[in-house]
């Protein structure tokens, strides 16, 4: 066990897997010599060399398109997109190609890779260094989507993602890159894809969150507890395929749901969760499921703490739901 922050945990997962499996290569803008703008790949260039830790030209489409080709060859690329806001020049390669390769070739050409990319707000990044585009990938059949909330899960989920046979979008909540700390096993382990964690048990309201907003949900849960409302907080960890059993079991117990996410509300992943809960636990619902999310505006700079669904916005929603 070593005490690590998220950046260190992800770095240690990459180092571990690159040692274990020489098919793994890292590529992206500034990932080499300088170790990434968030220093997540620091030291890998020196350890594994220019063939496996590759600074690329400034083109996300080139990075992902080439990574797909590398994967077809049999490598396991782990490209980094510097900010998830900059993933869109690669969107065509991801949705038209990566997601459909295995299917369209009848299984002849699985294209397996893991796209790592920092996600979310809270670092004063404004429009283009703060967005949370997860639902734009969850909607696309063929992709798995992961978002860890702590160093332990970050390492275990990244190892699981690299070993998973399917393409994975691995979103790293940059707001807690250094703030979230915890003990991380030194040995090999994985956190299974598709399994949520119950971060806090409770019986009155089910809160669903992930990534950086998990801590806001937990903070709101603490405050709600003071007012006698006992929240269960689920950390999804894998967004898709989501751990529906854990969600439904909780909702059957509480009958009340609050989903928290940073992405804009409309057509965000919260909508899907609510639709699924309707499908599978309708008769257990005692209050309308509620979303506390980013607003349907571009991500603002100065007012980012008003835009984000922080505890102060979650709490009233929880109380209202509990008292519905």
């Amino acid at each position, binding site marked *: 066990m070593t005490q690590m922050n998220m950046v260190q945990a992800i770095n240690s997962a990459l180092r571990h897997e690159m040692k274990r499996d020489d098919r793994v290569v890292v590529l992206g803008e500034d990932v080499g010599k300088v170790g990434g703008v968030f220093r997540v790949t620091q030291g890998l260039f020196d350890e594994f060399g220019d063939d496996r830790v590759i600074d690329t030209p400034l083109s996300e489409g080139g990075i992902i398109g080439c990574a*797909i080709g*590398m994967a077809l060859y049999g490598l396991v690329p782990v490209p980094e997109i510097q900010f998830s806001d900059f993933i869109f020049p690669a969107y065509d390669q991801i949705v038209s190609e990566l997601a459909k390769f295995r299917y369209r070739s009848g299984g002849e050409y699985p294209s397996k890779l893991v796209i790592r990319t920092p996600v979310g707000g809270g670092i004063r990044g404004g429009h283009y260094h703060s967005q949370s585009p997860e639902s734009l990938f969850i909607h696309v059949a063929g992709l798995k989507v992961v978002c860890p909330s702590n160093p332990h899960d970050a390492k275990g989920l990244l190892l699981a993602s690299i070993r998973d046979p399917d393409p994975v979008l691995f979103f790293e909540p940059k707001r807690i890159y250094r703030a979230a700390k915890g003990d991380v096993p030194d040995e090999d382990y994985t956190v299974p894809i598709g399994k949520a964690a119950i971060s806090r048990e409770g019986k009155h309201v089910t809160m669903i969150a992930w990534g950086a907003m998990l801590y806001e949900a937990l903070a709101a849960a603490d405050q709600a507890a003071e007012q006698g409302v006992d929240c269960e907080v689920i950390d999804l960890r894998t967004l898709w395929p989501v751990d529906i059993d854990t969600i439904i079991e909780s909702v059957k117990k509480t009958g009340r749901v609050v989903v928290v996410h940073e992405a804009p509300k409309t057509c965000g992943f919260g909508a899907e969760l609510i639709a699924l809960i309707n499908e599978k636990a309708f008769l257990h619902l005692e209050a309308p499921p509620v979303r506390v999310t980013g607003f349907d505006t571009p991500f603002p700079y100065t007012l980012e703490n008003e835009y984000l669904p922080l505890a102060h916005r979650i709490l009233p929603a929880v109380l209202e739901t509990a008292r519905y």
Partner: protein
Amino acid sequence: MAQPSLTETGASAGHSPSLDPNASDVIRVLRDDGTLDPATDPKLSDDAVVALFQHMVFVRVLDERLVTLQRQGRIGFHIGSLGEEAAILGSAFAMRSQDWLFPCYREFGAALWRGMTLQSYIDNMFGNAGDPAHGRQMPDHYTARAAKFGSISSPIGTQITQGAGFAWAAKIKRDDLVALVYFGEGATSSNEFHNGLNFAGVFKTPNVFFCRNNGWAISVPVERQTASETFAGKGVAYGVPGVRCDGNDLFAVIKATRDAVAHAASGKGPVLIEALTYRLSGHSTSDDPKAYRKDEVVEAWKQRDPLVRLRKYLDGRSLWSDALQSELESKVDAEIKTAVAVAEKKPQPSLESMFDDVFAELPWHLKEQRAQLLAGVRAKGH
């Protein structure tokens, strides 16, 4: 042969990339009189030339039969290679056995040459249960991994970047392998051409980028595609050497591709080839080119039909005859008829199969959706 009509497209005036296969920088071997220019002759064995000619005839006949099948409503679509057979077959022939091809969508001739079975191709045209792609994609979007031939998709150009990454991976692994990527001249306008060529240039990947300049992107002529002098010249922007060849001259295509493979395989990095050819048919069975181009230009290009030109060479060398030709045509015809008959008897892919291969294993939501479909009225018919 009227030269101007070979290059005229009828579109807006102004500078335009040349379509003239007689331009001075264009590699040519096969002369109008059917003899070869010894300076550029790739020196093929007679057996090889005959085999290639036979395959080109096969591809030509297949193309025509598929158009007929489409007109009869028996298949939904076909996108052919009429007039581009020399470019496609010559380049495929020039590759070594360990090399890979990343296709656009007109290169079924190359896939068949490299070992894709006719039946598998025809099954794809019918989208039946025998189709290796399980009827999931349109006709001409087959998959043929055993032939070291990539998976076809519709979005223009995506294979260019992927082909660069594939070759780059081989280089990282120190494997002796070249990846050739096919695309049309229209695709040079895509993001993918830019990304694929740029990454290939920087990382000196063992690639041959093979641009079939057939004059048209559906209805859009070359001068609406770029103001560049030539398509090969675009390599300059990426430090990638560009060469042009007469794409209707089998020997010239082989010469250009062989040299490019040698260059790429020796670690010197990628080469961009522009093969000057012409799309004699419509873009696909969905297209009627009369709306946008002149018959005369098409006629002029028909004079340069790669099969006719190669036949002239063979005749000059007494390697072929009318008798052999009609024997071949009937044989090929019979093969195609059989494959079509077999394909038409195969069932559709199963309803269940719709959910396979989205992921390596079926997740809960697809299990649910599959169960739903299988419980529905249509499942009973299956």
